[in-house]
Structures are given as C-alpha cells and as structure tokens.
C-alpha cells in the first residue's frame, strides 16, 4: 500500500467507524446467543490486502481502541490483533492466494487466532477458568458468524484501500481482454 496522508486518513476513519459500529451495534446483535466480532475481520482484511506491516499497525491501533472503549486491560486485544494482522499479511506476501473465497478462510483463521490468543492471555493474567463446552461453543459460533460476514468486510476494506494499492497484474490482464484488447493467442 502506498503510504500517504490521504491513505492513512482514509484507513483511520474507516477503522474508527468499524470500531464504533462494533461496540455500538454489532456486539449487541446476538445470533444463537453470541455476536460477531468485526475487529479481527477488519485487521485480517487490512493485512491480507495491504501487507504485514499495515496489518500489524492496524491490529495494534484497533486493539487499543477496543480496549480503551470497553474499559478492558490495555494491550490484550492489541497483542492478539497484531498477530492476526501480521500473520494475514505474511500469508498474502508468501502465498498470494488468488481464489475468490480466500478472504473467507483468512477471516475464519484470523478470528480463531485472535480468540485463542485472547483466551491464552486471560489464563496468563490469572483468570481461573476451566475450558468448558459452553466457552468453546461461544468461540466456535463467533468464528462461524465472522466467516459468514468475512466477504463483505473484505470487499469494503478493498474498496477503501483500492486507490492506494499497486495495480494488480491479474486485474490488469483481465481488463485488457474485456475492453477490446487483443488476447495473446490472436496476437500470435
């Protein structure tokens, strides 16, 4: 991603909006007793689209916003989301998955990783909690809900970041055929 004042402002405003929507609306809508969590999805999408450095920075910032907003222990969500942002960014940099459903898998994995790190940190901070079926069910249902809404969140993030991304060669090739350009076969 090209880092310019415009791109930073645009991304910050989008994340701020996402964070407010999460704590003011999404967290209060329950399906099967749990609610979706936009934070890991936003971070995973930023990392997956813009790379590991952007993903990690977005993860830290959004995590801090969530911790401040909900009077939680500062740094817990940041740490979990830094891992998600960096990890999804590295997946993009190393593998560059082109499948249309890749964001769904990345969203699910990102949510699972965030939930696992968050849980581990709680144990490390001294919460004496047995891993009950109810807790596992809640984590699994959150992952399922996030998987369902992963595609639109990724699409929104892509739209926000699109002007600041380098032109994708795959997209350029496709555009050339559809706008009347000659295919390599006919040129030969």
């Amino acid at each position: 991603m090209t880092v310019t004042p415009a791109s930073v402002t645009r991304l910050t405003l989008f994340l701020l909006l996402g964070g407010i929507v999460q704590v003011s609306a999404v967290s209060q809508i329950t399906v099967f007793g749990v609610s979706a969590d936009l934070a890991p999805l936003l971070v995973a999408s930023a990392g997956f689209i813009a790379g590991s450095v952007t993903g990690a920075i977005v993860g830290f910032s959004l995590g801090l916003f969530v911790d401040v907003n909900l009077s939680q222990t500062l740094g817990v969500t940041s740490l979990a989301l830094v891992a998600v942002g960096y990890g999804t960014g590295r997946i993009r940099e190393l593998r560059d998955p082109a499948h249309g459903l890749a964001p769904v898998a990345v969203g699910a994995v990102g949510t699972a990783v965030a939930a696992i790190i968050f849980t581990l940190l709680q144990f490390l901070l001294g919460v004496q909690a047995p891993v009950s079926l109810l807790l596992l069910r809640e984590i699994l249902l959150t992952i399922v809900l996030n998987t369902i809404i992963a595609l639109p969140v990724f699409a929104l993030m892509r739209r926000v970041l699109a002007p600041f991304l380098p032109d994708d060669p795959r997209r350029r090739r496709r555009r050339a055929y559809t706008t009347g350009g000659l295919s390599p076969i006919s040129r030969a």
Partner: protein
Amino acid sequence: MHDRAVRRRRAVLVVLVAASLILLTAYFGESSDGRLHSVQRGALSVLSPIQEGASRVLKPFRDLFGWFGDTIDAKDERDKAIAERDALIKERAELLNRLRVAEQKAKLEQTNDARGWDKYAPVEARVITRAANSWYQRMSINKGSDDGVRRGDPVVNGAGLIGKVEETWGGGAAVTLITDPEFGTGGITSGGRENGSVMVAVGAPGDLLFEPVDPDARVRENELIYTAGTTSSREGLESRYPAAIPIGIVTRIDLGDGDLDKRIHVRPVADIKRTDVVQVLTEPHADLEDG
C-alpha cells in the same frame, strides 16, 4: 533493498508486540487510580458522546438485525413473528424497540414503587456499548459522575441486579456485569434463608454459582437468590448492595463427592443481553442511614 524491507517489517512487529506487552504489564500492575486508567477514563469521556450518538443512529439497524437473531434464537417466538410479518420490517423494528424501552421503563418504575427502591435514588440510564467477548462482561451507560453515579454503585433493571459501576466519567460509566469473572456478592436464598456468596462459573458464560456459608445448607432448585445487604452492624462493613435485590434462580445442583464439592448453579433473573434501560442506585445505603 529486500533485506531492508525484511528488517523494517520485523522491527515494526517487534515494536508493536513490545508496546502491547508494556501497556498490558503497566495497566495490569497499577491501581485503578493509576496513570493508564486515568488516560483510559479521559479517552472514554471523549468517545462516549460519539458512541452515544452512534448508538442512537444505529439503533434501527441493530433492532432490524436483532429481530432476525431473536427469531433464530427462540423457536417459541415463531408464531408471534409470523403474525407480525405483514408489517414493514423496519417500521416493526422501530415500534418494537419503543415498546421494549417503554416496558423496561414501566417495569423499573413499578419495581421502584413496589420494592421501595426509590429511596436508593435510582438514576435511569441507557446502555451505549457492550463487550463482545466472554472474558469482559461489561457495558457502558450514558450516565456518569455528572449525574451522581459513583464507582461501586449497584446497577439494576426491572428484574433484578445487573452489575456494578466500575468506572465513571462526566457523562458515562462502565458497568461490570454480574456475569463477569471478577464479580462477586453476598446472597441469601428465599426458601431456607441460607447465606452465601454468588460468583461467576468461570468458563461457562451466563452461569452463576451460589456457595453457601454452611456446607450443609439445604438449597433447592427454583429458589430465588437475592442480595443479602448489610448483615454486620460494624461501621465500614456495609454491603455494596441494598438487601433484597433479586440476583438469580437456582437452576441445577451438581452433587460432588462431598458437601464441599456441591455446585449450585444460578441463572441471573435479569436478561442482561437484551437490556437497554437500567437504573443505577446512587444511594445504596439509604436504608441504613434511615435506620
């Protein structure tokens, strides 16, 4: 060039992880009056008006989606949903929302009259935000220190105890719910008047445990548990909560190897996830002062 990019990437990761760990350690180690807590309170006081506005703006959408969620959740509400489906969904969601808030307000007023909670100087508040995870069962409300709300004040709805005020700032407060792992209070059973403590069954979201003082206490299913209030006459040992606020109902008793292994499960009487209007009892010791 490539090496520089790799070094930069790793440096960013190390710096962010280190910053998170430093924040976490410092915050965890300091008291609630510490510097980071103050910064957090300051940020909350700036953000809460924005969130209150956002909460109001997003309310119709929340109700619209909440309607779908409730329908999926509760099969027994299906008939009601079918009867009402002819109405426009958005209009219906708005009407239901108004009705729900009005009912909660009416119930709160009715409860105040019936149970005499008026003497505890209740301050009505709206729920602005809620935590989405199982570890922090918290929410924020739109009344704070400017309205007389103080740290530790009990928070109730028409059904019973919701939680206690954890932090306050000018126009809002953070509330720790009774389902938060850090929450605990004294309780008394309605049948045998057995004293004990109510705490969260950690790892089982929404489930509470009642631990009687007397291990041989006879507690039965479906018994109501309510706050014990102040039982000691010693000054300075007042309970945080007034007496006789319903906490929950005994749903199940798991018998262990001995009396000490017995686990008495309690379901909160207040439907915490669907509460929009609450009351903060700003004078919880009014009855002691009267007496």
